[in-house]
């Protein structure tokens, strides 16, 4: 396990978000979406090269070193 970093008593997780290193307090994907101020209905979250089903966000923990990408849905074709 990677060492746990703590700031002001809050556990921080070091992730790679859209290619950039970020320290976040979110411990799962639901919290991450909320902290980023995103509308969860408009995006998918890719974690370590796999799109995570939305129904499992809460149960999906964020760990140090996780690579996350926010994928905005594209629906046009015209």
């Amino acid at each position, binding site marked *: 396990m990677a060492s746990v970093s703590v700031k002001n008593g809050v556990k921080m997780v070091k992730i790679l978000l859209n290619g950039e290193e970020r320290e976040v307090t979110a411990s799962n994907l639901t919290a991450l979406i909320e902290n980023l101020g995103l509308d969860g209905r408009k995006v998918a979250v890719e974690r370590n090269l*796999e799109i995570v*089903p939305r129904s499992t966000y809460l149960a999906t923990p964020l760990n140090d070193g996780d690579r996350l990408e926010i994928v905005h*849905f*594209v*629906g046009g074709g015209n």
Partner: protein
Amino acid sequence: MLTDDEIDRYARHLVLKEIGGQGQMKLKAAKVALVGMGGIGSPAALYLAAAGVGTLGLIDDDEVSLSNLQRQVLFGSKDIGAPKAEAAAVHLDNLNPHCQCRIHRLRLTADNAAEVLGGYDVVLDGCDNFETRLLVNRVCHALKKPLVSAALGRFSGQLATFDGSPCYQCLVPEIPPDAETCERVGVVGALAGIMGSLAALETIKVITGAGETLRGKLLIFDGLDMTSRIVKLAADPTCPVCGVK
């Protein structure tokens, strides 16, 4: 069997070990439904007709307009005002008379989708809205039809193949609110060519069995960075379409 004309026409396919005579016969026997004859449907239809797909279903209730021509390369200025499905059939017949076009001048709804799509082996969805995409996914899953789903907006595109689980609804569980449309946010024309051609290639692979398809995967193309990547799609255990009941 292939006629002499077909052997000549498809010579570049026939020498490919992944397609060859057997693959070409599969293409000839295949019936592909195209949902939407727009930016994605236009190039996809051109390449599928040229490739020798035996039957193409052209589904669109719209007419050709001037602003379509920036990317919908199947149509010309003389088609403005004509129903897209009918104009498309004329051009595709000119490109390859061996390809039979079925014109469906309608919008897919919960009432007609199963009947329309039921007549085809593979569905290529290039429509312009999430509501239809979710409907097409439900119907394809129920009818056990492989679904090649391509979408675009601005400079980016997404492509996936769904066959069983995961399905499109595992990726997009509900209609995203205030969804961007190409009309509102724009789309670069050549991107439609890329995504439509990728969707046609994917469809040819689904039909012939060549290589590995994008089943269970999502290809994300970014035209500004000129990068693409493929990510895995996980099945949603609670998916109302393909999840465990």
